[in-house]
């Protein structure tokens, strides 16, 4: 399957299928990570992160894939891994080209999202479900109330804000931990 076909899959919203095709590149990325001293689990995580970044970029209108998926995923993975290892020097950063800088920024951005994600994972199952339904399924509070057996949509709405606040608090503490 060519890169173009995969792009079409992304555009048509068949994200899962596209990921599935991209996984054929995984063995090569795995080799890269293994050669840099990671283990298979690391490789799997890195590739996942690279896919997330790719997906995020594809959603923004200004992103244009200038190279093949493999090249892109390869460089993203490299940065992700370097970031995990905290192994890049200032000199390396200065030598980066425009595209690489972008990727680097993406990776840094993604780290924040990762923190937010972790915060969500800490707020409890019910809160997670509520926020997911609201933000991703774009359900109305009425439907959420039905789905999650709240007494009314108002209760659902209140719950949602509570959960969000809770998550944000956790995020803030986490962010402080990371930055300190």
């Amino acid at each position, binding site marked *: 399957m060519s890169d173009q076909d995969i792009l079409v899959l992304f555009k048509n919203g068949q*994200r*899962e*299928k*596209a*990921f*599935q095709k*991209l*996984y*054929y590149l*995984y063995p090569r990325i795995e080799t890269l990570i293994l050669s840099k001293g990671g283990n298979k689990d690391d490789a*799997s995580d890195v590739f*996942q992160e690279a*896919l*997330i970044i790719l*997906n*995020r970029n594809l959603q923004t209108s200004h992103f244009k894939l200038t190279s093949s998926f493999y090249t892109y995923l390869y460089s993203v993975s490299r940065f992700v891994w370097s970031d995990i290892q905290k192994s890049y020097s200032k000199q390396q950063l200065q030598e980066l080209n425009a595209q690489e800088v972008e990727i680097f920024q993406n990776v840094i951005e993604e780290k*924040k*999202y*990762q*923190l*937010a*994600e*972790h*915060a*969500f*994972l800490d707020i409890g199952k019910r809160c*997670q479900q509520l*926020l*997911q339904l609201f*933000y*991703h399924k*774009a359900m109305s509070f009425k439907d959420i109330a039905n789905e999650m057996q709240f007494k009314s949509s108002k209760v659902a709405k209140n719950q949602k*804000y509570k959960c*969000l*606040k809770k*998550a*944000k608090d956790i*995020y803030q503490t986490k962010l402080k931990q990371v930055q300190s």
Partner: protein
Amino acid sequence: MDTYTQYIALINDYLNNVLSKEARLEFETKLQNDLEFNTIYQEHIIFINGLERIDIKSDIQNAKRTYYTEKWLKISGISIIIIGVIITLYTLVFNTSEKEPTPNSNTFNSIIVDSTTTQTSIVKKVTDSSKIKTIETTPEHEISFSTTTNQRKFGSVSSTKMDITKQPQLLKINVDKDTIIRCKEGTILTITKGAFINPKSKKSVSGTIELQVTEYYKLSDILLANLSTVSNGKQLETGGMLFIEAKQGSIDLELKDDLPIEVSFPSKNKKPGMQLFSGEWQGENINWSLQNDASVDDILISEEHIEELVEVPFNVVEQAPIFPGCENETTNDARKRCMKDAISKFIKRRFNTNLGADLGLSGRQQINSIFRIDTEGNIVFIQSRGSHPRLSEEADRIISLLPKMIPGKQRGKAVIVPYSLPINFDIKGDNTITGNLINKDTVSMATSIAFDSRLISAREMDTIYEDKRGMVEFIREVMHDKDFPVDAQFISEWEQYKKQKLIRRISLETKPNYIESAIILRKPLLDMANTKFKILEDDSITRGGHIIRVPWDKTKIPSSSRGYKLVPKPLYQAGRQMVTKSEFEEGLDDVTNTSISSRDVGNYVLKTSKLGWINCDRFINGRTTRIKYKLKIKNAEEASINMVFKSLNSVLPSWHTNDVYDFRTVGANENVILVAIKRKNGKLYYDTVDTKTASNPNVNFNFKEVNLEDLKIELEKLTRNSK
């Protein structure tokens, strides 16, 4: 809190693009001017993205799982296909070469190809009430690849098996008349009218029936058909095998019990004691069992035929063989004398007389040799017995060097002439040797021995030499006179009498399981000159006043109902036979020479009341020590291995489980050829190993691929090299 909630709601609306144009603008301005609002916005974006990660991750995990499942499915699918292919190939390979051991003893692993191309040209001659049909057929081997299961009388054949079968001769006969058929390789079948019955109705059939006859005389045919010569574990020597089938339409016919077919097996080098056996396939090997109804009559008939062997003693033969250089002699006697002298000279010149001294022998040495000059003039069947085995070998060596001669003739036809040759010489104390070979008397006496050996039975030879009991002694014994003068003339007369059946030597079963040898003399013999016999009125015979014979009383005379029970004569003893290899080959060429008409060769005439597999055989007894013979062969792969005896017309089968081939018991120190034929993937592989039977044999085959034609040629060669 309230402002925060409002802000979030506003941001959501903004991100969801549900705000009006003014509201959007207002929102974006607020975002730039209100730092607090901006922070909340940024934070919220991060949250939403973080939340999205969960979603993306679940998608990725699904994709990953699908990818691995697919990958696994692909790998396992491919491996299943590969394994499947391997298994298919494996089974294909082994199905083709495998002869599945079939539990039913009645199954038979080869197909008999229906003859569709047999051409018969029939020549009819009318003699008396019977018709003689000479049927020329072309028995071609055919390879048949059968992919379906063929059901035949003898069992089924698994798919994609290759088999080689000899094309049967297809004969159409009218059963309303007596019929004599001469088949391609010399078998003569005499069929009485109405001999065939329908097995169901038990009634004789009439009209035309189809007879299918396959002859197995040649070693190659026997081996290719995977036939062997064993009767319930006992080794047989064969005089020929046949497969006879009779059909009318689609009905398999049987023979009526009291109207057996007379089968005459052609044989050049006739051996006594042949009996008829019926074959039955047991697994992949055939077992022969004696047909009980081979009655005494039949053996007597065969005995008569033996007497007609075309071997004429040197003294008697009308036209003696001519030694090169003796052609110019005019009379027969002169030629004989010339030949005797030439042979004497020949031996004298070449015989290594130092050998005797080297062996530490002294005194008078005698080596008795006998050989035959065959119809081609070749020297064959050299047998020697000397006071030392090395002397015998030396004699064999010299005799084998004798030049090719012009064969002797009787009534204008080339015949085999036995010739006996005593070699005498003295080894004196001082090691000087007077090689005085042969005085005339010894020659004539010894020659006289030769004609008694017309049945070339090694044991007879042995008797002659071992006991110094030649024809002369024999005559003297019969005459009850130690000093009876026996000269060449007397012997030739004696021979004539024998031909006229005035003298017969028979074996009698006087008591059950007790065989006695008896000589029948007829009256004219006793009237012969110098015998001094007197025949008294009561028919008893006296000589010099002693009664030497009283007539048999009635109890002693063999009744016609019992008949003579002739027992097999002593058999060949290959181990003791001093016949050189090359002579064997030549002797064998003779046997396979089918140009000789059945009249010229002795036939084994036997009667069969069974169709199917028929074998003219005799048991091989009294042989040397028997040993168990088992082979372990690495690359056998279900090959069939048979043991061919060089000295006998006998083929032993092997029973195999995996790589172990069991020949059960065989005689020790036999010169044999192990013939292995492997059928695999529709191809033939072949190898032979020339060996001597001994315990714990170590034999390896080096299989070579051959096509059928080459295999046949190889087997023909084998025929020549063996026996």
